[in-house]
Every structure is written in C-alpha cells, then in structure tokens.
C-alpha cells in the first residue's frame, strides 16, 4: 500500500510537513533496532544451543515415523491400570489445589496492604511466596519424595507447595482490590478488625478466590500428569515409560486420555465457576 496521491499538492505538503509525515528519527529506527537485537540474540542462542539443519531434518523425519506409529492409539491391554493412574492424577491435582487454597488463605491477608499494616510482615510473606513460586513443581516433587517416599502423596505435597506461593500472591491482589466501604462499615459499628475481615472483606473476595482456585485446579491437572516422570505418582510414570520403550500407540492413547480429562475438568470447573460467581469477570 504505497501512499496514493489523494491531495492535489502532494509533494508540496510532503516538503512542508515532512517531519510530521515521516515521524522522528527515533520512531523510524526504533523498530529496526529492536528487531535487530531480538534476531541477533536469537542467532546467538541458536549457535550456542547447537541448532543445525543437520540435526533438525532427521529429527523431524523421525517424529513423522513416530506419528505414523501412534495411529491407531491403543491401551494395549493396560486400560485398567492406566485408568487407575489417571484417577490418581486427578486426585493429586484436587487435593494439592485444595490444601494450597486453604493454607494460602491466611497468607493472602498477611501479604495484602489493607489488612496487614506491618510492612515487615508483609515483605516477609511476599518474599516467602515469591521464593516457593520460583521453584518449579517438579523440583518440589523431588524434594518431597525424599520426605514421604515415592508415590502420589509426594505429588500432592509438591502441587500444594508450589501453589501456596501462587495463591497467596493472587489472594493478596484480590484483597487489595476490594471496596473498602464494607470493612469501614463494620469498624464504624464497633466491630474489631477480625470482624471487619470476616464480614467486610471475606464475602467480597470469596467468589474471586474460588474462581481462581478452580482455574488452578484445571492447570494443576496438567502439572499432575508430569510429576509422575520423577516418581511422584499419577499417569506421568506410565507415559515416560511408554516413550522410553517406544510404545507409540500407547503414548498416543495416554495423551488422548489426558486431553479428554483436562477438557472434562475444564468444562466442570467453568460450570461451577458460573454457579458460584455468576457472570462477573474474574478481576472485578
């Protein structure tokens, strides 16, 4: 789309207001500088991480072979044990989310500016939750395996730990975003600050918190499918095993099972969210 000559005196306008039409030097060159830097960094990354066509080509061909072997997906006679592992996965996600949601509840209030006046406590709570959030669920799973041994219980604890960090951050943000009038009303009629939290803040934030917890339940189901890779229970163990033994039809079957489960949980949790929260948006 080259600019067409709409105006009769096109060249005249261009010569008089050239600076406005072309924009400042910064506006003109900044996109190229940014794109150049991004590409240079990408090229450096490809060089350092040993990306090469000689490696990508055969890999893609192999992937094609695997895809061919995946059809048709089949449980290969392990349907019962796979279903049990999948139930375990959902149970891990459910319990982990629930425990984290309960345990993070007081932390959310400790980290919110309007319920915790003490800046030191607030700062400590926030750094604490930042720290446990910085460690991936899988790392927590490895640590908990050292404590309670291999099995799904370690998975529950791992999901719980990493979610406590996320929830206390989300909770405190929801608490800070509330309308103050409710708690002011409670305080003005002689309620204590605990009363203000119970009757002025909790009723306001509860629907927001519940809908966030439901969102996390869905994403935790996905996390729970992989913690089995390190031995913390669930379907991940089977999946990793089937990939290692090149049982591609079973791999495809397990992936399909995961997709269907996640879709069902997504559907249920959005129904539940609608029933509890109504049609208002998450941030309000």
């Amino acid at each position: 789309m080259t600019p067409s000559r709409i105006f009769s005196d096109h060249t005249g306008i261009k010569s008089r207001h050239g600076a406005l039409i072309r924009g400042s030097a910064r506006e003109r060159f900044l996109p190229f500088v940014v794109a150049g830097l991004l590409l240079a960094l990408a090229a450096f990354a490809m060089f350092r991480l040993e990306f090469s066509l000689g490696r990508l080509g055969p890999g893609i061909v192999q992937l094609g072979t695997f895809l061919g072997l995946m059809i048709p997906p089949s449980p290969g006679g392990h349907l019962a044990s796979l279903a049990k592992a999948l139930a375990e996965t959902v149970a891990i996600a459910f319990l982990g989310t629930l425990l984290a949601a309960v345990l993070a509840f007081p932390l959310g209030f400790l980290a919110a500016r309007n319920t915790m006046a003490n800046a030191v406590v607030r700062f400590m709570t926030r750094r604490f939750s930042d720290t446990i959030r910085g460690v991936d669920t899988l790392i927590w799973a490895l640590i908990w395996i050292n404590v309670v041994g291999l099995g799904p219980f370690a998975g529950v604890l791992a999901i719980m730990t990493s979610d406590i960090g996320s929830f206390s951050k989300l909770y405190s943000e929801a608490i800070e975003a509330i309308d103050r009038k409710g708690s002011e009303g409670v305080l003005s009629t002689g309620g204590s600050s605990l009363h203000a939290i119970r009757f002025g803040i909790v009723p306001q934030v509860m629907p927001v918190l519940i809908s966030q917890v439901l969102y996390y339940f869905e994403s935790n189901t996905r996390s729970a499918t992989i913690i089995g890779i390190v031995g913390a229970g669930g379907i991940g163990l089977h999946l990793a095993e089937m990939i290692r033994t090149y049982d591609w039809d079973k791999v495809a079957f397990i992936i399909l099972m995961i997709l269907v489960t996640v879709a069902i949980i997504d559907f249920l949790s959005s129904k539940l969210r609608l029933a509890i929260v109504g049609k208002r948006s998450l941030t309000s």
Partner: protein
Amino acid sequence: MASAIPVLPDQRIAELSAPYREALAAKRRTTLVGLLVLAVLTMAAARVAEVDPGKFLANISRFTDYFGRLFYLDTGKLVFTDVAEWFWGFGKWARHIVDTLLIAYLGTLLGAIFGFFLCFAATVNMAVSPAQRFVARRFLEFCRTVPELVFALIFVVAFGLGPVPGVLAIMIHTLGALGKLFAEVVENIDMKPVEGAIAAGATRWQAIRYAVVPQVLPNFASYALLRFEINVRGASVMGFVGAGGIGAELIEAIRKFYYSDVSAILVLIIATVMVIDVVTERIRHGLISPEHAR
C-alpha cells in the same frame, strides 16, 4: 437522637423477618451441602492418592532435616561461612543458567512468531471461515494442553539429548498459549481501520499489517514477555528429561545427595527467576502505559 429512628410495628417485623430467616437458612443449607460434597470428594481423593497423615507426621522431621542439611557444606560448616566453597561450581552453573535463559528465549520467540501467524485464523473477526477457526482453535488447544515436558520427552527421542528438544517443546507450548491470548486481543480490536483498509483494496494480510498490528502490538509484546517469564521456570526443569539447561545439574545433585550443591543451584535459579520477573514487569509497564496515555 435515638427516638428519630422509626421502629416498625411488631407485626411488620414478623412479616419481614420470616422470609429473611428462610433465605438465610436456605443459604446455610447450600453451603453445608457444598461442604459435604467437598468433604466426600476429599476423602475419596485422599484414598486414591494414598495420603497418609501418619507417615507425613512421622517423616516431617526428614523435611526439616533435609532443608537443614541443604545449608551445610560437606565439611560440616554452614554454607554462608564459606560462600566460595558453596558456589564452587559457579562458572559451570552460570553457563547452564545462561543456556536455560537462551532456551526460554528462543522457545518464546519462535512460539510467539508462530502464534502470531496462527492467531488470526482462530478469531471471530479475522478468520476466513468457521471451519478454519475451528481447526485453528483445536490445534492451539492441543498445543497448550499437552504438558511441555511430554513434548520434551518425545523430542528427546527424536532429536537426541540436548537443548534442541527443550527449545522445540517450549516453542510448541508457547505457540498454543500465546495463540489463544493473541486471538483474544485481536477479537477486541476496533474493526473500523480493517474495514477502511479492505475498502481501499487491501488483501487480508495487508489489512492485518496496516490495520490490526498497530492496534495489538503492545499487548502482543506484553503477553510474550509474560510468557518468557513462565518459560524461564519451565526451562529450568527441561534438564530433568535431558532437554538442556540447568535442570540436569540440579537433578544430579538431588539424586546424589550433594546437599550444598542443591541449595546453591536453587538459589541461582530463584535469583534468576526473580530478576527476570522484575525486568519483564518494568518493560511490560513501559509497553502498556504510554499506549493508554495517548
């Protein structure tokens, strides 16, 4: 002043309070039933997941013990007393952290580029046909629902050990996640510039270039940065399955009980994640706020 408050006649109060009590009781019943269902589900889940509070309590000392041991060197001294000994492998670990960041960066960049080209097909307002939209949406869903570590496991078999499968796994997951977010942004744009461009004879991609991209670019960039932040965390565990980065060092240290190494690597990872969080948040605020000010 108390007399100024009108007192309702008793009969009226009774009339009003009966439905109030009823409504309250109904609400209590709903909450109670909800809690009961939750309790039953919890018990069932606890059975399936082999939750054992007894074992937990019996072994909780091992947890504190483990964390305690993380902060002691082999020599028995606290790690803080000899930082040079604690971070003996700093050069090696720093190189792996850089690799992790590069994996996250390259995965995010490639995923964002593919997500950009795919997102328009998944929108209500820019897709060519409902069929195209359906296919694009299902594809994006697939990419983001399968965990990236599963892709990594498969790619490690296909491409061999190393960072390449890690980058590709993160790329596919990012493309699914960003494609969806990008599509939502595109669905909320002002369509007038698009109509103008098409009326002036623009093709679909020309309309996207001149009428859509200027509206959505700050939001796209902001989402991509947010994703980068998430991907740094994701890349830190790619090494668990042999897909490059610091994860390989970490899992080796955990498996071989090199306690002080575990804590040193964790400190490096947490510090990196925090720095990336702060930096990307700064950039994102810079991207979004001038747009709103205009």
